């Protein structure tokens, strides 16, 4: 399983764009990059998944450079409700054939 490295914490303000970068130098050819979001007192929930280039949904965008050794989760115009812990995972796409390991995540705090 590819190890991931992401910042422990980040701060930003309402209305700003927030970019959280994740490093995964030993990502395998078949691996996808997946991000989960966890609010206090809740389990994590899926945000976005990608393999290369750019993926966008109603919540976020995911940018993956050509070498795939890192990825950036982009949250446009954040609000206070985006305060959460964000986890970057690398592995087979939504695979239920193996265990899924979470790292420590990035604790994002949004201020008014």
């Amino acid at each position, binding site marked *: 399983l590819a190890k991931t490295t992401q910042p422990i914490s980040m701060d930003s303000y309402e209305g700003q764009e927030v970019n959280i970068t994740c490093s995964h130098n030993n990502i395998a050819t078949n691996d996808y990059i997946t991000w989960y979001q966890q609010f206090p007192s809740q389990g994590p929930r899926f945000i976005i998944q990608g393999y290369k280039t750019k993926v966008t949904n109603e919540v976020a965008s995911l940018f993956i450079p050509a070498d795939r050794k890192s990825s950036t989760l982009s949250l446009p115009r954040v609000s206070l409700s985006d305060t959460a812990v964000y986890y970057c995972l690398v592995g087979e796409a*939504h695979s239920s054939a193996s265990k899924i390991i979470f790292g420590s995540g990035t604790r994002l705090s949004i201020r008014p």
Partner: protein
Amino acid sequence: GAGVSQSPSNKVTEKGKDVELRCDPISGHTALYWYRQSLGQGLEFLIYFQGNSAPDKSGLPSDRFSAERTGGSVSTLTIQRTQQEDSAVYLCASSQPGSPLHFGNGTRLTVT
């Protein structure tokens, strides 16, 4: 539709007692995961069930921890002779092939 349900939501027990934590996964999900999360920390993988295959128990911290999944559905995590360091939130997730993990809201275990 119904999500992953965990019970109890909170459990306080005395050191040395046994506890059972229950997880009702989403119907039809073949994979089931247990994680532990200490205060302010990331998710620690405990055990993973996939269909009728032998579970991956590689994350269980000691032989005081065990888990079962009956009939491919409900799972019970048992902690024997609880210790204070077992205090944490225990999270359950389920998934089906090609889909992300769906988490419950966890059981907060406090060992006094």
